[in-house]
């Protein structure tokens, strides 16, 4: 049985449907990421799990118990807020102890637990500081410690790293996974940073306009997106829209910007004449100076963006279709701007999308 089961939850605010018939299962011990563009209802879904919003319809079960009607203080769930929401009139230790005090634990147990939590997030020297005397990263740690102190069954994290700068975010992301493994609590993390979701999560749910459009392991989401939206939102992608036709070797896609039909992965079962899109990740695209054997697209290099570990090469076909290729290392240096190149990719590495 999953730790968290959401069964057809919906929430409307006036005319907008913030969460639309969402069903989700989060397994015990998972590091589950909710990924989606801004305003797609991630926070609203989290707030329903925490008990700050009542779903208009649907049920929420935690550990098999229906918590839909329970008030926030009675749920075995804690939340780390998008704004951290540290109590400004209490010091760090007071903030972390707040939840424990509500359980009427004795003073020594609380103090020990606070010390343990401070050590866990590496903030041991800061017990007596007030929140406004901390940096953004330190506040984030205190907020995490406060939410973990009660050892909830499920920890909800709303964009926990959004307020941190890029480098700190990468470090904290690693720490977060470390902490999650150590405490063994199930994490449900909201993020609109797809890199974050892919790198830390054991499972990802992609949301769009209030709906969950795909769930799966990060690699599955990235390699086998179920729709154009997921393909486009998670990572970089080339999306070619076209119409299916019978090629000389299975199905092919007629794309307006290419001279010849593009071969599709074998095993594609779709009716001829249907509209579809082909998603090709930039790192699957292979560039060469001479025309390779088999399928290839003639194009010219329009610009090269250096990314450090590699380069992204933007190409344009004669018909004006743009595509991009990712070349690792210094491989892009042999292609100058305006140079004619041939682009191709293994047909089985592309994904056909009809949604």
């Amino acid at each position, binding site marked *: 049985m999953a730790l968290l089961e959401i069964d057809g939850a919906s929430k409307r605010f006036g005319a907008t449907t913030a969460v639309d018939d969402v069903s989700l299962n989060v397994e015990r011990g998972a590091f589950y990421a909710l990924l989606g563009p801004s305003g797609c209802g991630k926070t609203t879904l989290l707030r329903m799990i*925490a008990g700050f919003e009542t779903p208009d319809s649907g049920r929420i079960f935690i550990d098999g118990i229906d918590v839909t009607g329970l008030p926030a*203080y009675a749920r075995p769930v804690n*939340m780390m807020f998008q704004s951290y929401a540290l*109590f400004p009139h209490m010091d760090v230790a007071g903030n972390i102890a*707040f939840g424990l005090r509500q359980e009427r634990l004795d003073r020594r147990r609380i103090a020990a637990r606070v010390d343990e939590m401070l050590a866990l997030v590496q903030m041991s020297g800061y017990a007596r500081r007030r929140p*406004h005397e901390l940096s953004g990263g330190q506040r984030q740690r205190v907020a995490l410690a406060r939410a973990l102190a009660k050892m909830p069954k499920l920890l909800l994290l709303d964009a926990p790293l959004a307020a941190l700068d890029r480098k700190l975010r990468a470090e904290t992301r690693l720490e977060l996974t470390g902490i999650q493994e150590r405490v063994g609590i199930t994490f449900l993390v909201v993020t609109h940073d797809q890199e974050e979701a892919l790198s830390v999560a054991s499972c990802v749910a992609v949301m769009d306009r209030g709906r969950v459009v795909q769930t799966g392991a990060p690699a599955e989401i990235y390699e086998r997106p179920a729709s154009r939206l997921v393909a486009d939102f998670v990572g970089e992608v080339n999306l070619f829209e076209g119409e299916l036709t019978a090629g000389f070797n299975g199905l092919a896609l007629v794309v307006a910007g290419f001279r010849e039909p593009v071969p599709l992965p074998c095993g594609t079962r779709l009716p001829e004449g249907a509209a579809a899109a082909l998603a090709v990740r930039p790192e699957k695209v292979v560039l060469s100076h001479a025309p390779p054997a088999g399928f290839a697209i003639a194009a010219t290099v329009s610009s090269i963006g250096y990314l450090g570990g590699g380069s992204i090469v933007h190409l344009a076909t004669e018909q004006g279709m743009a595509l991009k290729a990712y070349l690792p290392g210094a491989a892009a240096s042999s292609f100058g701007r305006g140079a004619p190149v041939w682009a191709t990719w293994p047909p089985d590495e592309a994904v056909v999308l009809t949604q």
Partner: protein
Amino acid sequence: MLGFGFLYAPIVLLVFYSFNASRLVTVWAGFSTRWYGALLHDGAFGTAALTSLEVAAMAAALSLVLGTCAGFGMARFARFPGRLVFGFALLAPLVVPEVILGLSLLLLFVACQSWFGWPSRGMLTITVAHATFGACFVSVLVRAQLAGFDRALEEAALDLGARPWTVLTRITLPGISPALVSGWLLAFTLSLDDLVIASFVTGPSATTLPMAVFSSVRLGVSPEINALATLFLCVVFLLVALAGWLMARDERRRLFGRQV
């Protein structure tokens, strides 16, 4: 500049002459604190001052409770029937002339007395009258501070297992404490200051300090009054400064607190 001059020159003059050794108010005859001494021995002013302080403290406490409730009502319950009317009713005493306020309260008290035989006019009626308009000021302050209060803090407390009552006493009230303190101080000084309303609603048993001063001034200004006024000014000034300082400190803290 000139405006400030007109405002403060008489005050400075008054403070200055309160240390005058002469009985004549406008003739300087050297420094002395004898009028402060005389004030101490004058029982009438002492009683009046005590009455005033007592009334002010009680009225301020009452204002605080009522005003906080009203402020919460306005800030938290966005749509209840009659909200607009309630809002206006809260603001009205801030702009209605004191004479009218005093008169209407007097009529109310007289009516009450004739129907229920209670309350007899005196300290109680002054306290109630002061509490009503003090509560309006408090509610405005509380409402403003609640509007700037981060509700995520309350949710975080709920999330950590605190019952709504604990959230109110441990999180919300401490969070708006600057408004509560300055509201109390404001209500206190307003009550201490007030002559008009108090004169309307009082009975023979209670005389507040402003009333005592006013009636004695009508017999001629004595240096004793200057001394009294100076002391009074000090108290009011201190309270206002305290309120201002608390507000400023809160503002600073909020600025620091918000920069994530």
